[in-house]
């Protein structure tokens, strides 16, 4: 059986193709303003990599903020549902999942089949999502790709009180005036963000097997801050940004745990 999962996120479109529950292709394209057109691009890239055509697909599931903007799909499934499926597929012991994407932060508890038991979503606030680090890296004039590693060089813990991107930026300005190093400021940003995410995950409860997914999982500074806050080591899978699309493809295949 060949299935496709499309995750139309706030910033990127991710596509995963499975053949008999094994990943055969994936692609990632900026969503931009023409989301449907760019989703088609991502789909075409993945189909090409898999060496198949659209007609070979048995089922397609779409997910993410723009799930209904996919050029074609058979069903939609929630991001929390897809994340949980993808997480349990990658690490069968996983029962808690944190997904931090560009626009949203989510926390889930799930069972061994990837079925969601409880979830929480960060609403109407960028301070618990990737948009926060982007805004702060801009404010500090540090490339986003270097922002995480920079915070690992911090020498001090500086509390950032603001839990809001707008006010956090003004706190950063104050820190600049106080001649705080960029590394310490980067750590302050990640600590604040981790605090918001861990408070969300504490609300639903978690065990030691926590999988961190979504694009922000690639930010080593944030991961470090989150580990410290949760007092454990979260597992970051390879290519964490694809887990939602992987879950969508698994849902299309009717996968419910096991290999």
């Amino acid at each position: 059986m060949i299935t496709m999962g499309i995750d139309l996120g706030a910033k990127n479109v991710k596509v995963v193709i499975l053949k008999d529950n094994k990943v055969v292709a994936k692609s990632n394209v900026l969503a931009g303003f023409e989301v449907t057109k760019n989703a088609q691009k991502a789909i075409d890239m993945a189909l090409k990599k898999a060496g198949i055509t659209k007609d070979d697909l048995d089922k397609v599931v779409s997910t993410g903020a723009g799930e209904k903007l996919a050029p074609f799909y058979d069903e939609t499934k929630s991001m929390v549902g897809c994340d949980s499926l993808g997480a349990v597929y990658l690490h069968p012991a996983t029962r808690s999942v944190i997904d931090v994407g560009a626009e949203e932060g989510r926390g889930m508890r799930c069972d061994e089949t990837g079925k969601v038991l409880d979830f929480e979503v960060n609403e109407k606030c960028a301070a618990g999502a990737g948009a926060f680090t982007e805004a702060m890296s801009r404010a500090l004039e540090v490339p986003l790709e270097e922002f995480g590693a920079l915070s690992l060089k911090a020498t001090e813990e500086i509390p950032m009180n603001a839990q809001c991107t707008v006010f956090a930026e003004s706190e950063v300005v104050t820190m600049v005036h106080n001649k705080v190093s960029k590394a310490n400021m980067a750590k302050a940003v990640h600590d604040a963000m981790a605090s918001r995410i861990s408070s969300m995950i504490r609300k639903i409860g978690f065990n030691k097997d926590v999988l961190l997914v979504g694009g922000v999982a690639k930010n080593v500074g944030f991961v470090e801050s989150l580990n410290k806050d949760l007092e454990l080591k979260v597992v970051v899978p390879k290519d964490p940004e694809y887990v939602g699309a992987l879950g969508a493809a698994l849902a299309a295949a009717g996968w419910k745990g096991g290999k």
Partner: protein
Amino acid sequence: MEQEALYPTEKLKCWNEAKQIRMKYYQDYAEARNKGGIRWAGGAWTFDAIPAGLGEDVYPITSEPYGATIAFDKDLSLECMEAAEKEGYPRDLCSYMRNYWGSILIDKYPFGYNDTGEFVARFQGAKPLGFPKPDFIWQDHICCSHAKWYQVVSDLEGGIPMFTVDNAVGPANELTDSKIKFVVEQLKDGIKFLEKVTGREYDDGLLFKAIRNHFVSTSKWAEICALNKAIPAPLDEKSIYSLYVLGTLQKAGKQVADFYEKTLLPEIKERVKKGIAAVPNERFRVMSDTQPPWSFLSIFRYLEKFGCVSIGSLYTFGLIGQWEVKKDGTWGPKTIPDVEFSSRDQALYEYVKYELHKPEWQHFYSCHLKSDMMIRIAREWKLNGVMLHYNRGCEGLTVGIAENRLALLEAGFPVMAFEGNNADEREFDEARTKAKINAFMETIGAK
């Protein structure tokens, strides 16, 4: 996603009558002075049988349904909110209250007359009508906003005589004779106040009738809600909002008591008997909590796409309904006191003793009392899950919801929480709430 019908369905026969009662209520209030009558303002929870003793031409306007009515008219609500904010009232205050104050500040009533002289809502083409100023304010105080609300109303209107009853005497399970008398004595003082500000002689006979109406309205509403234990549910929550509101307008009014007892209750009994469903594809049952985001009631229709019916809530059941534990241990309508009223003191005592059991007052004292009632509903109404509204527009009813969530989860009921505001649509994100509903429906197996 759309599923085939499992049960027959039909519209409520009494729908138009309910709408007429509501519209006449707002018209009577607006026109009261034309006929030499009296207008008064107060909360939906106030002891509204008391002003009824001033005569049969005394018309109330209750604040919370008025705030919700404005909220339903998005354009008017935004005007009201912005007017209140311009005056310096911040956005974190009660959003019903801000709509109400805004309506005074911009001098707009959400109703009026259309070209053919019919009394209709403003968004249905009514010509502008100013806010009809009340003659006095009769309020209660259990929620911190309640008394302050009308203090500001009085100030904005240039000074309106106001009486507020402190009914925060503790939960019903700790009720004592002295606590009841504490409230009764205030009501007696209040009657003297009403005589003084209106110049009218108080009629105990009218008071007795109004208290009797109150007993009937509140007990019969509970009986109607109890019928929703049936599968399929004869009522869905969106319809319940349109029906419970009559009790919030004038629970001591004969028109409301009669409607609940003689029209709505028999019709709902008939629906249960015939298996008529509110949602014909009902497969899953949930309840909500606190006021809904009034301008987005569409979320309840959205649930129906998954074969899910929201059967009501502690809020809709217990804001007006009075309940008691029956012999079999289940919740049912509170028994109407079998007493003849012989004096003002005795009638007021019975009235207060009965009313202080209002379920929606109990969780102002303890979130655990609320959790117990919610878990009871979840079990007896056979629910698959609960949707909780973290309502930024009403602190009073939102405090403790996080505790309720934990208690419900511990009792084995999946819970979805969403953020919003009952009357300030700027604080509700429809797309994200629907995305959460999608995920929740997957969790309970409806998708």
